[in-house]
Each structure stands twice: as structure tokens, then as C-alpha cells.
């Protein structure tokens, strides 16, 4: 673990952006939102939650991903998604727009290859929800150049492991109706975290134990030592109380339970997850519980904080920034939540850290 951390730091130093992300004016975060008139926006925010730019979205957004070198990010539609916007973050303008090929739907997340040459998009085959990664040439105007299988049904978040071109895909396991998001296979769902090699092959698949087969693996946060923290959503009997944090380490999954009554406060649902490398804390949000739960880097429960409809979360300084559907952007540390800014927007599912 120490060796990997050291090498990771070394790589990060050598991969510092030559220009772009360091430019003054680049936002710290991207977040999608809905305004009072029902219009959808993508905003670039500073680390204290101030708006640097606002771009109109054709429909509801979800998450985004940053290019490793250029000050560029791609913002994705909420699933079943029909668009993704490539944003010049230094200027706050849209520079390209992607649409999935026929029969495919974006699933809200994506990630770049380590050198920034390829964008991978989380997708499903519309009929049946079989998982695909769409491949786009980021050096040639985001031309579609292929697709890979994800090794599961209904992929959602996708991240690239540090010091690697291996991808981790959260195959949420849920087949949905391509038109209305109705869940079709809850009784038989089988989510997994799949590791996809740079050659596009599924190198390994990690599953939860059978009694947690209905715990949809959905959102990921990378730890610098090569582990991945995964936030889940329980689709089984609502009366059961199950862990919502699972740690992935070398193709194995370890659920990390919290005390029952703390888990109950999350209402069996985690919407987003983030890791703070300064404090070694993992934080999960639950808009359905109106809670943010903090764990240590081994998955041990630390604290529950209350904030109605809290969902977006990203690391910042020695804590986190949290967005909610009531318009507030808050700072979170061990002392609790503190509002930074109140807006008239309903902040959507994710707050994405850039740069």
C-alpha cells in the first residue's frame, strides 16, 4: 500500500498539466442543476461554491469527468442519456457535443484514459441494459472509435485506477426499460465491479456475497493506494438494513457496515461518494435519508451529518463540499456542515472535482 501510494504521488507529479487546469479561472467543481423555471444548467464552481460559468443543458444532467491534461471536461446527461457536452473549463464554453450511437444510451458517467487520448463513456444497450463502454477519440474531435463490454448489466460510474490504464466499472446490475427507467430484474439482479484492462478485456469481476446481490454497486471514489470505495443502493426488502459502503481491493469486495441505526438514517440509499486524501475520510450522501455519512479509510464508521436532500459531494481542503436539492452549497468537516452559499437552484446528483 505504501509503495503504491509513493508511486502514485510520483506519477501525479510528473503528470502535472503543462497548461490549462492551472490557469486562473478554472473552476474547482462542475455540477448540474435545475432552476425555478424548470430549465437545466451545468455550472462551474469555485472551491467556495461561487459560480464561474453557467451553461444551458438540453435536459437533466448527472455527472462529469475531467480531461487529465487539457482544461476540458465532459458533462453527461442523466440516464438514459442522449447527450454529453465537452466543456472548455477555462472559458466556460461548450466545444463539442456527443450523442450515443443508435441502440445505445449514456448512463451518466465517463472517464478519460491516463494520457487523455480516449474518453470512455458508461453506456447500455437500450434493449436489455447490457453494459458497454463507448470509446471516443479525444484528440480528434471526440469521434466514436469503438466500444467494449463492461462485464455486467446497467453500468453506472466508471473510474480509472491510479498508476494504471485499468478501468473499474460499477455494473449496477439493474436492467431498465429504455423509455421510462422502470426496473425490470430486481429479483435476479447481480451487480459487480469489473476491472477492464487497457486492451478492453474484462480482467476480473468482483461480486458481493449472495445475500447482498440486490445491493446495486453504483458510484466510485478512488483511494490513492489503489483501492476503490463504492457507494451502493439497496433494491431488496426495504426493511433490511445493509451496508452502503463497499471497499474494492485487488478484485475483492469488502462491505463496511455501520451501526444499524446509523444505516437506517441513510434509508438504504447512497447517492454520491467522495474520498479526501488529506484527512483519509470517505463520505457518502443520502438524499433519501437527508444525511451525509463519514467513514475512515478502512471503512470504519465515523459520523452522520444531517442535511435535507444532500447528494453532490467532493473533497476540498481538509473536508468536503456538499450540494443539495434545496440550493445550498455547504462545507463539511468533523465539526459538521456549514453553509457556504445559498442559491435558487436545485443541485443535482453529483459535484465533480476538477483539475
Amino acid at each position, binding site marked *: 500500500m505504501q509503495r503504491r501510494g509513493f508511486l502514485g504521488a510520483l506519477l501525479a507529479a510528473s503528470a502535472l498539466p503543462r497548461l490549462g487546469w492551472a490557469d486562473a479561472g478554472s473552476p474547482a467543481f462542475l455540477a448540474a442543476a435545475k432552476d425555478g423555471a424548470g430549465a437545466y444548467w451545468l455550472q462551474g464552481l469555485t472551491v467556495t461554491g461561487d459560480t464561474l460559468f453557467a451553461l444551458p443543458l438540453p435536459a437533466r444532467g448527472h455527472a462529469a469527468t475531467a480531461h487529465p491534461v487539457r482544461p476540458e471536461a465532459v458533462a453527461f446527461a442523466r440516464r438514459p442519456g442522449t447527450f454529453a457536452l465537452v466543456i472548455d473549463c477555462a472559458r466556460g464554453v461548450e466545444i463539442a457535443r456527443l450523442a450515443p450511437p443508435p441502440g445505445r444510451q449514456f448512463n451518466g458517467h465517463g472517464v478519460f484514459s491516463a494520457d487523455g487520448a480516449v474518453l470512455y463513456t458508461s453506456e447500455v444497450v437500450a434493449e436489455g441494459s447490457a453494459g458497454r463502454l463507448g470509446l471516443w477519440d479525444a484528440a480528434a474531435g471526440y469521434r466514436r472509435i469503438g466500444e467494449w463490454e463492461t462485464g455486467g448489466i446497467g453500468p453506472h460510474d466508471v473510474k480509472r485506477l491510479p498508476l494504471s490504464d485499468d478501468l473499474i466499472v460499477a455494473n449496477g446490475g439493474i436492467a431498465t426499460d429504455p423509455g421510462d427507467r422502470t426496473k425490470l430484474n430486481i429479483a435476479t439482479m447481480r451487480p459487480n465491479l469489473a476491472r477492464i484492462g487497457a486492451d478492453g478485456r474484462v480482467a476480473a469481476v468482483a461480486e458481493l456475497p449472495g445475500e447482498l446481490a440486490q445491493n446495486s454497486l453504483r458510484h466510485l471514489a478512488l483511494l490513492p493506494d489503489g483501492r476503490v470505495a463504492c457507494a451502493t443502493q439497496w433494491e431488496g426488502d426495504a*426493511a433490511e438494513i445493509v451496508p452502503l459502503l463497499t471497499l474494492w481491493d485487488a478484485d475483492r469486495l469488502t462491505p463496511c457496515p455501520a*451501526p444499524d*441505526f446509523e444505516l437506517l438514517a441513510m434509508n438504504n440509499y447512497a447517492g454520491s461518494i467522495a474520498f479526501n486524501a488529506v484527512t483519509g475520510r470517505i463520505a457518502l450522501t443520502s*438524499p433519501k435519508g437527508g444525511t451525509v455519512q463519514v467513514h475512515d479509510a478502512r471503512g470504519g464508521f465515523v459520523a452522520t451529518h444531517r442535511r435535507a*436532500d444532500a447528494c453532490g459531494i467532493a473533497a476540498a481542503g481538509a473536508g468536503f463540499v456538499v450540494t443539495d*436539492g*434545496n440550493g445550498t452549497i455547504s462545507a463539511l468537516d468533523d465539526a459538521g456542515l456549514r*453553509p457556504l452559499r445559498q442559491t435558487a437552484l436545485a443541485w443535482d*446528483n453529483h459535484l465533480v472535482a476538477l483539475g
Partner: protein
Amino acid sequence: MPKHLPPLRRPALALLALAMLAAPARADVAQVVSDHALPGYARLTAATAALAAEPGCDPNRLRPLYHKAFDAWLAVAHLRLGPVEDEGRVLAIAFWPDPKGLGQKAQAALLAAADPAVLAPDRMREQSVAARGLFGLERLLYPAAPLTGDYACALIHANAADLARMAAEIEAGWHDGFAAALTAPGPGGRYLTETEARQALLTALVTGLEFNADQRLGRPLGTFDKPRPERAEARASGRSLRDVQLSLLALRQFAQKLLPQSPQTQAAFDKALTAADRLQDPTLAGVADPQNRLKIEILAQDIHAIRDAVLAEMAPALGVSVGFNAADGD
């Protein structure tokens, strides 16, 4: 009506109508706190204290007090915000549903060990939430097989004292800050704006309605091919339907305090309460019988219709909705 269950008292509709006329146009959060939450918690403190104060172990004396305490809980059980969220109290008071039978197992372990030290208040509060509270007491007061010996009796008293402690702590927590957090929102508080406080209450109202339809009725309903009457809440003490009725009455008062002028919502409550009264099925055993099952399904639909009325009528009038992200799922 099963023995020990006091008759259901219903507020006269005419009185309710008068109260609605006299109320200001927007009673709102302060009214909910002063006329609904605080008196409800005071009654819960009193009812659980009375149960804890009962000496001896005569079921004929304990059971009526138990029902009064449970009744008092139902008047506030939907207020899942504030002090009841702390220290796992909401689960420790009412650990239901319990599909894995954790409460039964934890209590059996306590009875088998018969360790007198566990009965001390500071040890009792550390026991599994599944073993404590109203459902822990139900298993002791309405046991599947007769309980014998002094330890079971002592466990009843320890359980009742623990319940009374939690009720008193919750009431104190409302007086010592949470009521003010709701009625005087602002920076540094749990709620930043009046809108957020109203949203918290509206969410509690909607969640409370859904709990009745989806859990209290939905769990025993199961599916048509596989009804699950054994899953009904508080079946042993014969108050499964009563819990739905009392909860709906409490939720109706809650809604009326939150927004006095909500005729669609109040009418939807009346329809569901009338359907519940007609059921005459204390333990919801009728889920397994096609004809009676239909009536219980209709009651569940009537409760969903209350929720729909709340969202259509009350949410816009209060200027709030249930959460943007909470209502989603992605």
C-alpha cells in the same frame, strides 16, 4: 375488540371544521410544533412513565398501560426528525419491520442469560435496539409461549423504564433546541430557511403516509399469490389495524396544522379513515382471504391517494416539494 384495547377516540368532524375556520390562513411550522409535536411528545412521556411506574407483573394491569403508550407513540411516530433520530432512538422505540426476527433472537438471548446486571438502566440502553422498545415489550406481554420466572418480569420493567427514558429525552430535546431549530431557522441551525423547515415537515407527512400503505399494510398484503398475514405489525397484541387508524388520525392533524386550508387532503383522509373503520379486522388477517384482501388493498390505495393530495395541494401551497434528489434514484 381485543381485550385491553381502549376504544378509538375520534375527534368530532364538526369540531375539526370549526378549528379549520378559526385558524389563520397559514398556520405552518410553529403551529405544528406547538399544537402537534410538543403536546404529542408530552403525552408519550406521560404514557411511557405510567407504564414504567406500574409495579408487579400482572398482564391485566400492564397491557392497558402498554396500549396507551403505543397509542401515544403513534401520535408522533411520523415525526422522524430531531431528537428521535439521535442515538438510534427511533429504532429502539419501534423496531419494526424486523424481517429477520432480530428482536426475537436478541430477547431470547437476554432471557436465556438472565443476567441481572443487564437490567440496570445504563446497561439496558446499550442493548440491541431490536430487543428494546414497544416490540420488545410486546413479546414479553403477549408471549408466544408463557414466560415464567422473575427475570422476565424484571426485563419488562427494565424495558419499560428504558422506553420512558427515551420518551423523556426526546421531549426534552424538542424543548431544548429542536423546536427552535424548526420555528426560527437560520445560519448555524439544522434548517437554514423557513422553506427548509416546511419541507422537512412535508417530507415527514409524505413518508408517514407511505409507511402506513407500504409497510403496515403492504407487508402483510405481500402478493396475491403469497399473502403474509404473519408480517402484520403488532399482531400479537392485536393492534395492527389500530396502528394504521391512529397513525392516519395523527397525520390528519399534522396536515391540518401545517396547512389549515387543505380540503382535498382532509377529504382524502376522511375517505381512508372511513375505509379503515369498516375493516373490522384488528390483525389484518383478511389479507389471506380474497374478499377481505380487496378491502385492505383499497385502504392502501386510499392512503396513497392522501399522499397524492398532499403533493398536489399542500406542497405548492407551502412552496415546497419533496427533495429533488430524494425523489430520484440514480
